[in-house]
Every structure is written in structure tokens, then in C-alpha cells.
């Protein structure tokens, strides 16, 4: 057997999942399982109880909801990649979803699972930072929202509380999010990003009026890059201003160094991919 022993239970409602979680200190929620099961096979994760939430159909919808798009946390990467609503209102998210793993992984893996797991080398974090997403979490004390800027707080660590379930991802409908993209330099076997860069950008008469830049895979956890943002904001959009802004990528940030890609190379590639993303939007 690969994984350590655990008890398995299926939750039939969000409320039941939350109360099962509250009753069991050492429990994990199972959605698509494409982050959790590999971790359990390596016994890096050894929950006593596995609460399967994959049957909660109310969390599998993507819809327009007034001023924002609402994405249920159990939507698969495939759904997010193919959703016309996401493609036209926040293409950075469908870009990211379409390059996660491979077709089989995208069939099973979910956006909520990936964001709750918050692997430093995941794709959604960079894209959701660029899109200024809002996360909806439900827990024993009710529902609350968490802004993306407050969400990624450490290595495999998010602002979600121990007993909370991520139920929804909200992306505002606006022209800036509609002009967004996510580009990535993937590890050729695992397809995790060495560098993943999400950008959303608005312009007025050829001048950058606002920009958000998020990086995945570069640091110990995903971060917004205010150095790139502030260098381009207010500037006319051209090759030279974009190159100057891209040159600030990951400046002052702690950058990963591993046996595949050195810190120096990752920094260089962060600049290249930031530039590509900004060029694509200008």
C-alpha cells in the first residue's frame, strides 16, 4: 500500500463537509485528488480521515453573477480552460487552466483543490493574483471573503482557516481582467512552471493606466510584483517601456534555486516571461 491508513467518508452537503472537518482534527478534504493523492502516496500527507467533497454538484458551476464571474471550487481545470465565460472575461485564468499538467490531469483536478493546496509551483496563483480574485470560504462560523493579495501567505500555506472550505472564486468583470494573459515556462516532464506569469493590463490612448502582475513557480509562494507594475503604470506602452518594466521582475524577491533551474536562470526567465505577457496585452 502506498498511502497510510485513513477513514473515508463522502460529504453530501457543504454543511456536512464543514461539520465533519470540525469533528476531525486530522482530516483532509478530497476534491479531484490530483495534489492530495500524490502527497498521500509519498506519505507527506497522512490524514486520519478523508472527506470526499467531489459529489457536491453545487460547486461545479461557472456563471456570471452581476459584477463578477463566479467559479465553483470543484470546477475542473478542463472546465475552466474551455469556459467561454472565463475565456472572454478573464483569459489569464483559462490560459493557466489549459496548461496545467496534461489532458488527463485537467479532467480530474479542480481549481479549488489547487488553490487550497497552494503548491508554490502551481499555475492558478499567478493568474488569480493578476486578476485580483476574491476567494469565498465557508467554515463553522459562516462565510467570509478573502482577497487574493491576502491569500497566499507561505509555502503550501493560505489564509484559509483550518476548518474552512473554499467554495468559490470570484473575478470582477472589467476591461482590465478582459485584457489579461498567463504565460509559462514549464518543466518538460511534470509541466509545473519554472516561471508562470499572469498579467492584466488596462490602457488609455496607448498609456498603461493600470497593471497587475503575479508570478507562480518563481518564489517559495506566489507573489505580486509591484516593481514591474509601478515601472509600467503611467507610461506609454511600447517595446522600450515594457522591456524596462520586465527588467524589474522578481527584484528584491527570494527566488527558488533547485537542481533543474538555478536562481540566476529563474530570474532571467522571469524577465523574459513578464515581457512576453506584457507584449501580448499591449
Amino acid at each position, binding site marked *: *500500500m*502506498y*498511502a*497510510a*491508513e*485513513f*477513514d*473515508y467518508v463522502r460529504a453530501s452537503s457543504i454543511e456536512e463537509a464543514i461539520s465533519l472537518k470540525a469533528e476531525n482534527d486530522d482530516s483532509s478534504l*478530497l476534491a479531484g*485528488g*490530483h495534489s492530495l*493523492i*500524490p502527497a*498521500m*502516496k509519498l506519505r507527506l500527507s497522512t490524514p486520519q480521515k*478523508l472527506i*470526499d467533497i*467531489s459529489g457536491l454538484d453545487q460547486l461545479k458551476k461557472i456563471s456570471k453573477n452581476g459584477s463578477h464571474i463566479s467559479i465553483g471550487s470543484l470546477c475542473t481545470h478542463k472546465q475552466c480552460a474551455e469556459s467561454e465565460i472565463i475565456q472572454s472575461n478573464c483569459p489569464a485564468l483559462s490560459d493557466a487552466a489549459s496548461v496545467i*499538467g*496534461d*489532458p*488527463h*490531469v485537467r*479532467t*480530474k483536478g479542480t481549481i479549488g483543490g489547487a488553490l487550497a493546496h497552494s503548491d508554490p509551483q502551481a499555475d492558478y496563483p499567478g493568474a488569480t493574483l493578476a486578476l485580483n480574485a476574491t476567494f469565498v470560504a465557508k467554515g463553522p462560523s459562516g462565510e467570509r471573503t478573502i482577497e487574493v493579495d491576502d491569500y497566499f501567505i507561505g509555502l503550501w500555506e493560505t489564509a484559509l482557516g483550518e476548518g474552512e472550505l473554499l467554495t468559490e472564486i470570484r473575478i470582477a468583470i472589467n476591461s482590465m481582467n478582459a485584457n489579461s494573459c498567463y504565460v509559462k515556462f514549464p518543466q518538460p*516532464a*511534470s*509541466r509545473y512552471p519554472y516561471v508562470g506569469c499572469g498579467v492584466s493590463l488596462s490602457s488609455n490612448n496607448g498609456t498603461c493606466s493600470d497593471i497587475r502582475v503575479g508570478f507562480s513557480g518563481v518564489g517559495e509562494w506566489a507573489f505580486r510584483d509591484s516593481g514591474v507594475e509601478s515601472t509600467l503604470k503611467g507610461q506609454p506602452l511600447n517595446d522600450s517601456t515594457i522591456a524596462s518594466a520586465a527588467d524589474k521582475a522578481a527584484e528584491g524577491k527570494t527566488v527558488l534555486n533547485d537542481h533543474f533551474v538555478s536562481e540566476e536562470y529563474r530570474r532571467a526567465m522571469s524577465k523574459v516571461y513578464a515581457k512576453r505577457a506584457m507584449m501580448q496585452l499591449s
Partner: protein
Amino acid sequence: MKISMKVNGVDYENDIEPRTLLVQYLRETLDLTGTNIGCDTSQCGACTIHVNGEAVKSCTMLAVQADGATITTIEGLANDGELHPVQKAFCENHGLQCGYCTPGMIMASVDMLKNNPNPTEEEIRHGLEGNFCRCTGYHNIVKSVKAAAVSMKGGA
């Protein structure tokens, strides 16, 4: 824990430990050893099967998650001894060398052709991104999938 599922048209019911992976259940409990275990890290695709008509990696799914599902493995593709057109195409185009990745390659290819019956070479290569051939025999694998697409369009 009791689970039941339909595998290659046959109903099964078994009592298993919740930590049993779907690929272990198929290979060790049902003795369907056509599905291989390769990398064990969700990357290589040797364990690709169809769960409710979609290609998934059975090493990254618990058997309990497939409770109630309809499953097809490589053993279930042939129809009354007649090989599936994708299996035939792999035979005819030398789409395998050592053969270890083949069951997964074929299951992934069948799923891909269902969604895209007439793929370009580039689409085939992208569609098989989740399946590795460590003999690096990709050239003939792509050729096989192309040939299968043509023969399936011909009403095979």
C-alpha cells in the same frame, strides 16, 4: 469499505481498504494487469484508463472514488475478439517498441479521437502530453494515431 463498479462491461463488488488506488484494485483485485504502473507520480500516463468515458490516470485516483463508475481498460477495447481501430493502427504502424506505455497510449488516443476525430500532428502530440514513451518511439505512435483517425472515419 464496499465498492461496486462496472469494468469492461462486467459488474464487480468488493470490500477494499479505502487507501487502495484504482490501478491497484484493477491489477491486484480484478487481475486486469493490462493497465501498467509507470512513474507513480501522475506524469507518465502508463496507467491511463477511462472512467465514465474520460481518460484519467488510475494511479492518482482511489478505488473508492470510482465507486459506481463505468470503467474501460485496455482489456475492454476489443469487441468480440476484433481489435479496436486504434489497437490495429498501433500494430500496423509499429506504434510500440517495448510496449510498456502502449495500454496508456492507446486509452489516451481513443479518448483524444473521440473529442477530436481528425487531429493534426501537432494536436496529436499535445493530446498525448500526459503519456511518456521511454523508448522515445513517438514518431510511430503519432503515425498510428493518424492512421487510426483515417480508418475510423472510414466507418471502421
